[in-house]
Structures are given as structure tokens and as C-alpha cells.
């Protein structure tokens, strides 16, 4: 894969002209657009329409901030389904700033970022990966002497739209997991006045990022989102309902440990903690690493990485029920429940025994008095 800086994009050139000059065939371009159209859930017929819309697009500027993160999301983008799509994406946009892909370094690229932001003010797309540490004045992530919070605020100022890419950028991910030592938060906690789309996942599938950017370029707005701010075209369906192992779930065939016979047979991973029933993600459809496979396909339960605060809410990854406040509920809830039920039964038995005992004693006492004695007046039900 070439770095974007290898392409020369003349000022004012449209995408069609640019592709022509680079020798990208129109056929390849329409094919790319058709794949994106399918990913967006628009149907393959929408491909040419997207192509027409994109052709006239002037190359939009994208500023990509990498903050408190692991670079996994960039890796994921570089592994979009078809390698040429990744190329095309980087062709579609002018990636003016990205730590991993930039050829340059140091003060020069910081200056380049400033000038790109100034030149495209109010028009560029801001992509953020990584969380924003807020404790101790934000010293946990500092780039060029400035804190992550500072950088995000500055970049968001002139952004037309923000893509919070990955669990870190929206919920803080593992950094924000209890006890969140660095006070990590997502972009949405810092920036309130810009449209933010949540490309959820740890990392998200590269195609989702590509398709979202294309959607923005084609329609001039971000795609429709669900209650968590995730694009519906990708996150509408639940893993469990699209899973290749679902037949085994319905049949009652479960893997109980990773080395048992059921695991070899490819049965459902529910009993080893699969979070597919609680996770909305296109993994089974888009898959990973140029459609090689996906976690459940490879025999690992879904860990629910596209869901809010999954390090706190989806752990333990290999158990059905979540822990609460660090308390291992999963291991104990049935033990505690059974203990309480047995305790209740024992308490009831003890109470019953004491009741019978006291009743017999009082009966003996009562029956020593005449039948019409006043004591009966008090024997009230």
C-alpha cells in the first residue's frame, strides 16, 4: 500500500479527473462504488449513482487524530475487504494528517495540519481514534506538547463532521474501564456541538469506516444512526441473528470448553460466554482481514466490543453474566441464589418447627381452662 502523499492531487481537480490521470479504470471505480452501496444497504443498483455523485466531489480533507490508542483502528482500515478499496479510499480523501501513514514527522507535519485545517475550515472531516485522558490535566496523552483534549477541541472547531472511530473514541474502551486511572473519556464527552458518528468496535471493521466516509462524500451528511450513535447500515442487526453457529444454538448444541469435542464440531459458543445475543455489529457479514474470517467463525466467542463500555459491561468475556463493580457475579450468582433459597427453606423449616412447638405448648395450657374460658377471646386469627 502506498502512502497517500505519493499521489499528487491538483487543486480544483475532481475525483473523476484525478482517477483518470492515475489510470484507475472507470470499471474499477464503479465496482468499488457498488461494493460500498451494498455495504451501506442501498443495494448494488445504487453503485452508479454513488459513482456519479463521487466523481464531481472535490477532494475533501480528512484530519485523523490518533490519541490514547493502540493504532489497531488504522490497521483495520488498511485491511478493508479489497486492498484496492483501501487505496481508493485514501484516494478519495486527502488524508492531511495521520501519525501512522504520514511520511513526515515533527514540527513540519504539525504545521501542515494547521494549514490544512485553516484552508478547509468548516469543511474537513475529523476522524478521531483513541480516548481522551482528562486526569492530571490530560498529561497521559501529549502530542507536540499539547494534550489530547486540547487537540480535539481545536480540530473539532473547524470540522464539518466527526467520526469517532473505535470503542476508545466513543466510550474510552479499555482505558476507561474501571477504575479508569487516566480519566479517559470519548470525543462525545468533550465535543457537544458537532455531529459525531460512532464507528463502534475494538477495532471497527475497516469497511464500515470506508463506507461511512463515502456516505458522507456522496450525500453530504452522516448516515442514519441507532441509539448509540452507530450507523444503522452496519449496526442494525445483532450478531446472534446472523451467526453461522445459530443452528447449533437453536438445536441446543453448545461448546462447554475450548478443547472439547463440541468445539471441534463448531457448535454454538453461548456457554463459553458469547456476547452475540447482546451485540450489534456487522462482523458475520463484513468479516475481517479481507473477508478471511471473523471471531466466532474462528471459534472464539464474541466479546461485544461494539457495545457501550464493553470492558465493564461485557466482562467476563468467557461467562454469560456480567460482573458488577468488580464483583464476580458470574461465578457466584447461582451459588448465592441457591444458598439463599436453601437458607429460606431452612429458615422456614425452623420457623415451622418453632410454630408447632409453641402451638402445642399453648394448646396444652389453653385446654386446661374451661371451654368457654375468656382465653379463647384472645385466640385471634
Amino acid at each position: 500500500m502506498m502512502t497517500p502523499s505519493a499521489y499528487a492531487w491538483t487543486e480544483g481537480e475532481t475525483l473523476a479527473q484525478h482517477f483518470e490521470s492515475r489510470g484507475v479504470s472507470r470499471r474499477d471505480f464503479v465496482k468499488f462504488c457498488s461494493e460500498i452501496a451494498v455495504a451501506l444497504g442501498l443495494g448494488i443498483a445504487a453503485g452508479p449513482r454513488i459513482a456519479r455523485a463521487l466523481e464531481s466531489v472535490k477532494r475533501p480533507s480528512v484530519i485523523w487524530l490518533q490519541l490514547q490508542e493502540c493504532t489497531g483502528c488504522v490497521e483495520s482500515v488498511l485491511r478493508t475487504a479489497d486492498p484496492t478499496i483501501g487505496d481508493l479510499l485514501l484516494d478519495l480523501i486527502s488524508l492531511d494528517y495521520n501519525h501512522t501513514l504520514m511520511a513526515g514527522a515533527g514540527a513540519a507535519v504539525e504545521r501542515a495540519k494547521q494549514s490544512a485545517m485553516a484552508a478547509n475550515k468548516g469543511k474537513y472531516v475529523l476522524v478521531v481514534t483513541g480516548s481522551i485522558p482528562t486526569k492530571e490535566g490530560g498529561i497521559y496523552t501529549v502530542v507536540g506538547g499539547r494534550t489530547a483534549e486540547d487537540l480535539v477541541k481545536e480540530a473539532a472547531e473547524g470540522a464539518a463532521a466527526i467520526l469517532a472511530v473505535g470503542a476508545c473514541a466513543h466510550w474510552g474502551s479499555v482505558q476507561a474501564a474501571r477504575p479508569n486511572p487516566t480519566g479517559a473519556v470519548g470525543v462525545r464527552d468533550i465535543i457537544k456541538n458537532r455531529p459525531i458518528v460512532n464507528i463502534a468496535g475494538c477495532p471497527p471493521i475497516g469497511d464500515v469506516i470506508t463506507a461511512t466516509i463515502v456516505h458522507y462524500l456522496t450525500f453530504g451528511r452522516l448516515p442514519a444512526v441507532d441509539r448509540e450513535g452507530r450507523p444503522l447500515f452496519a449496526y442494525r442487526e445483532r450478531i446472534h441473528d446472523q451467526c453461522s453457529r445459530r443452528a447449533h444454538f437453536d438445536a441446543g448444541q453448545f461448546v462447554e470448553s475450548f478443547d472439547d469435542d463440541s468445539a471441534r464440531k463448531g457448535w454454538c459458543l453461548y456457554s463459553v460466554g458469547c456476547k452475540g445475543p447482546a451485540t450489534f455489529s456487522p462482523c458475520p457479514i463484513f468479516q475481517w482481514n479481507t473477508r478471511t474470517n471473523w471471531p466466532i467463525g474462528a471459534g472464539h466467542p464474541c466479546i461485544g466490543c461494539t457495545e457501550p463500555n464493553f470492558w465493564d459491561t461485557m466482562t467476563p468475556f468467557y461467562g454469560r453474566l456480567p460482573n458488577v463493580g468488580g464483583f464476580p457475579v458470574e461465578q457466584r450468582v447461582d451459588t448465592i441464589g441457591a444458598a439463599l433459597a436453601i437458607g429460606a427453606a431452612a429458615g422456614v423449616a425452623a420457623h415451622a418447627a418453632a410454630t408447632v412447638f409453641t402451638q402445642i405448648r399453648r394448646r396444652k395450657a389453653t385446654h386446661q381452662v374451661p371451654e368457654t374460658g375468656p382465653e379463647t377471646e384472645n385466640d385471634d386469627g
Partner: protein
Amino acid sequence: MTAPGGAATGRRRINLFGLGRPLSRERGNFTWVYLWSAPIRATHWIAAACVVVLIVTGFYIGRPYFMTSGEASAHFLMGRVRFIHFTAAAVLIMAGIVRVYWLFAGNQFERLPALFPVTPKNVHNMLRTAGAYLTFRPDKQPSLVGHDPLQQYAYTGLYFMALVMVVTGSTMYGQSNPGGIIFRAFAWVPLLLGGLQRVRLLHHVLAWAFIIYVVIHVYFTIRSDYVERVGRVSSIITGGRYISTDEPYEDYDINQVPAHQWPTPEHPNPKKEA
């Protein structure tokens, strides 16, 4: 009106360790009062059956303890168990709807205000009941025809537990049709609890609460039959129980109601007689 107590009729009965001998109300005059109308009794037993089915199937869904073998296409075990679970839940919800209707149509013991005994007198009675349980003095319990406040709060609490079960269960059920009516109607639940897994956890924990509840509930009703001898267990089948006519009741003026309105052995069908 006859007294059903063994001592009053002078019948001999088998008396193992004195267990068979009635204590309270064994002498005096009794009458039968009709307390629980048919919808209450029907929903009680429908709900009881549903809860048992829901607990058994729910624990399977939470942790599948049986497995099938061979081709997946030949089996539908989890599918069937979930179907039974959802069907039982639907029946329980319908029973709940009838109960809600009866909160407005029922008699004084079944109506909405009866669910919340909040007056100072009620609170006092609740403490008296708790004290009577703790000291094993059934004779110290308040004199009530309907539920005592402690019992009533336990039942009201059960209604709320069932409501939380229905809400959390419906939330999970709705996930299989994202964007559907049920999904959208309960979209606030995962947001409120902090994720679907928390919804799942609450549902699971309350299942245990139901088990514990059933143990205690069954015990106290049977115990009440033993110490009070007023036929409380059968009241949820026949609709009524015996009360003494010798003593006033806090929640019921027996003199206001003509005797023939209550079915008694002599007047099995008072409505026709009237």
C-alpha cells in the same frame, strides 16, 4: 351458622402430637365470607403455573444443562425451550392485564388502594404481624379479614418483581427484531441499566428472588392454615374463608352484610335465595 371447629362439634379426630387439634377459633360462631373473586383466583393459579414454567425454562436458557447431539437440523431444543418460555411469559402478561383491570373492578380487598396499606394503623398492624411471627404468637396478630399489611406488601412487592421481569424479559426478547415495536418500546431499559448484559443479570437475579419468594409464600399460607384454622389455602381455590362472628374485624363489618349473602353449608347458593 355452625362452627366448623372440631371442639365445637364434638367430633373425635386423630391427634398426632396435638398437631391436629385446632387452637384459634376452635370455639364460637363462624361464618364463611367470600373474599376472592373468580378473576383473582384464576390469575393466581395461571400465574403460579407460568412462574414455575418460566423458572424451569429460564434456567435452561441461562445455562443450557441439556445438550443434543448429531446434526443441528435434527434438533430444536433451545428453540422449543425459548418458545415455551416466551409463551408462558405472554400468558403471564395477559394474567397481569386481567389483574390490572381487577384493580379497578374488584372488591375492597382486590382494588388498587388495598395494595398499598399506608395509614399509620396499617403500619402498626404490619409491625404487630412481624412481631407475632417473630415471637410465635399468632394470637397477637391483628384481627383482619383480608391480607394483613405485611402480607399485602409482600404481594404488592411480587407484582413489582413480576413487572421488572416482564420489562427486562421483553427487552431481551425485542433484540431479535431490531427496530421492531418491542425493541423500540423497551429501548430505554438497557440505557437505564447500563447495557443489555445488566438487563440479563437483573432478570437472572430476580428469577432466584422468585424461587425464594415461592418457598416463603407457600410456607406462610400453610402455616396460617395450621395456626388460624380459617381455610386460607382453600380461599384461593373456593374464594372464601371462615371468620368468627364473635369478634369485630378492623377491615370488615360483618353486621353490615346480611348473613345469607355468604354461601354457607346451609345456604350454598345465597344469590338464588335472595
